[in-house]
């Protein structure tokens, strides 16, 4: 276990160093634009999986959290012009509060009812933002990026690195939850909430913790998107695509292990980026749909489940 931890942090450090090196060496802007989107989806998928994977509460409201993150940043930037780090921190705080409210919702609603409530929440929040003129309302708002900070010589490179740091943060938190008493408690309530409560698992506290962490991460992932696009409009910020993608990535990767959503997000994210610049027509929507169906049929536990199956078969063969 301990050796695993060391490997993980070495890997994380290498990943960040690699990201930093990329910003210093590569002159071409496109990789940063494309990788930023993939990293953003990794954070979203990992955050989704904390509540949806470990606790089994399927949240369709990823786009609500993402959009609130975007608009927190827009509001703060327009009102005070605070730097990016503050925007992200504030978005995380707002996300945590929203997550707390969502957690209280789980008291009354479970299963499909909870999922439907999260969709309703998305629509309510989007409508509210649509009618809020200060942040652009329905017509959206264009933003002018401030000057970039050293050592970066380009804003997109900086956003890319910031998002890479958030990936490490999200994965570390998810990994910690999985390996600690929180994860085991969540697993227990996923299997049978009543039984877990009876055996002394503090289900409400655990659910609230999961919702708060998941919400904070999703909102934080959304905050830099305002500066990435230099534009925000409710239809794009609250696009259902974020909810569907985060869910699909987690399911395809597998929700039982923290690495599942990471693998899923990389696989789907890279495929989406590639399809956008290669096939680039209706077919790319079809390809994603077919991929999802194939995984649901052939690998219901996701890629992680598939790997485990292959491993256990090999072990059996050896034994």
């Amino acid at each position, binding site marked *: 276990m301990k050796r695993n931890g060391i490997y993980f942090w070495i890997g994380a450090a290498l990943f960040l160093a690699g990201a930093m090196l990329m910003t210093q060496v590569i002159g071409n802007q*496109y990789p940063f634009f494309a990788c930023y989107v993939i990293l953003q989806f990794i954070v979203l998928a990992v955050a989704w999986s904390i509540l949806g994977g470990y606790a089994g509460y399927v949240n369709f409201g990823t786009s609500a959290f993402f959009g609130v993150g975007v608009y927190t940043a827009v509001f703060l930037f327009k009102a005070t012009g605070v730097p990016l780090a503050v925007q992200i921190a504030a978005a995380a705080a707002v996300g945590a509060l929203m997550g707390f409210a969502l957690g209280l919702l789980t008291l009354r609603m479970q299963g499909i009812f909870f999922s439907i409530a999260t969709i309703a929440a998305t629509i309510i929040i989007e409508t509210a933002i649509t009618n809020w003129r200060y942040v652009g309302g329905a017509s959206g708002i264009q933003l002018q990026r401030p000057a970039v900070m050293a050592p970066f010589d380009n804003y997109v490179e900086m956003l890319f690195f910031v998002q890479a740091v958030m990936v490490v943060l999200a994965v570390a938190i998810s990994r910690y939850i999985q390996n600690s008493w929180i994860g085991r408690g969540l697993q227990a309530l996923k299997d049978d909430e009543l039984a877990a409560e009876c055996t002394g698992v503090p289900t409400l506290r655990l659910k609230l913790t999961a919702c708060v962490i998941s919400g904070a991460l999703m909102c934080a992932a959304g905050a830099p998107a305002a500066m990435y696009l230099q534009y925000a409009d409710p239809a794009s910020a609250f696009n259902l695509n974020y909810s569907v993608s985060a869910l699909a990535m987690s399911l395809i990767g597998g929700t039982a292990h923290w690495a599942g959503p990471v693998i899923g997000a990389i696989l789907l994210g890279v495929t989406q980026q590639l399809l956008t*610049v290669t096939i680039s027509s209706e077919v790319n929507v079809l390809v994603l749909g077919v991929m999802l169906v194939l995984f649901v049929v052939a690998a219901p536990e996701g890629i992680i489940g598939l790997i485990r199956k292959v491993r256990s078969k090999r072990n059996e063969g050896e034994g």
Partner: protein
Amino acid sequence: MKRRTLLGGTIAAAVFGLTSAAIAQQPIKIGMSMAQTGGLAGGGKASLLGIEVWRDDVNARGGLLGRKVELVVYDDKSSASETPAIYSKLLDVDKVDILFAPYATVPPAPLMPLVKQRGMLLIGNFSFQVNSKVGHDMWFNNAPWGPADSWASSFLDLGQKAGGKTIALLAADQEFAQNLAKTAREVATKLGMQVVFDQAYPPSTVEFSGILRALKAAKPDIVYVASYPPDSAGILRAVNEIGIGDNVKLFGGGMVGLQFGAVMENLGSLLNGVVNYNTWLPEEKMYNEGTKAFFETYTKRAVEAKVDPLGYYLAPYGYASGQMIEQAIKAVGSLDQKALAKYLRENTHKTIVGPITFAADGEWKESGVVQAQFRGIKDKNIEQFRSSGKQVILFPAKLKSGDLITPFEAARK
């Protein structure tokens, strides 16, 4: 030594000659993203086909600067979040020479700071006031919107001439419709009209009879509607069911969707009497040099490509984008962005949609939007829209092909 210099010189000259020949053979790349999927796909495909028809025409004429013209097009899924990465790819990986903007207003919005930063020329494609805040001086919109308020003022002017004093506003809660409603309020105040009803509805609304009953109760003379394709249909169906009142003289204005073949075919006789904006119609005065030939080619190819068989709204303007850049490149003799922008800004360009002159903000100096009234439309017949007289042009005066029939209830019959 001398011989070596001579040899070196020869090799250098040969290499130079070869590379310049290679450059001459390389095509001029025009890059863009275009909605192929999502809500804007219907318009995006028609617009792209218009541009493709131009590309084939210009290549048949021998290309530009002796080079072939090639389009590099990606699907932006009708979303603003896709375009920054796509345009970065176009600039940094594909190294395109000229940029065209994606169709509509939301997808190009994030691009404006990017192109301004890179000093790139951008030919707009039916965006509405997307450059007003960024102020990029190398932006040229192909759409005939003109000054922001010209749209509302042409419609309200017609209403006032028909004796209208009060106005009702009905607008979707989306960027384009809200911008239209905003200018309509301003113009109404300027014309001394009273706004007696002002309602925004969520974009997902499907049932309009409640809203229309409230509107009817306000007894307006003019009803200005700014809506999107699904709601435009919903509103007309509700009007057909419950009526709109005898005092309404003018109905329509900014209903998006009533320009698309499939929507028009579907609504059929419900369209009668509606006065709505348009960009091109098969009326005699709208034909310029090349317009007829363009539509002959377009119609043939649209059937094969399964896009809007009429294609009046967007396709000719896609072709016009190409014509403008063609004239600029020919006049300047290079692909220098600044020089091209200067040429586009300072000259009038001859296109199949008429002469285009740009104002300082990159929009048309004078609005080319027409307001036309649907007349004698029958159900389930798309071919009827190809003949003149089905959409009679009321505004502007120079393109006028008939007079307004009022009140609206009489014109509906």
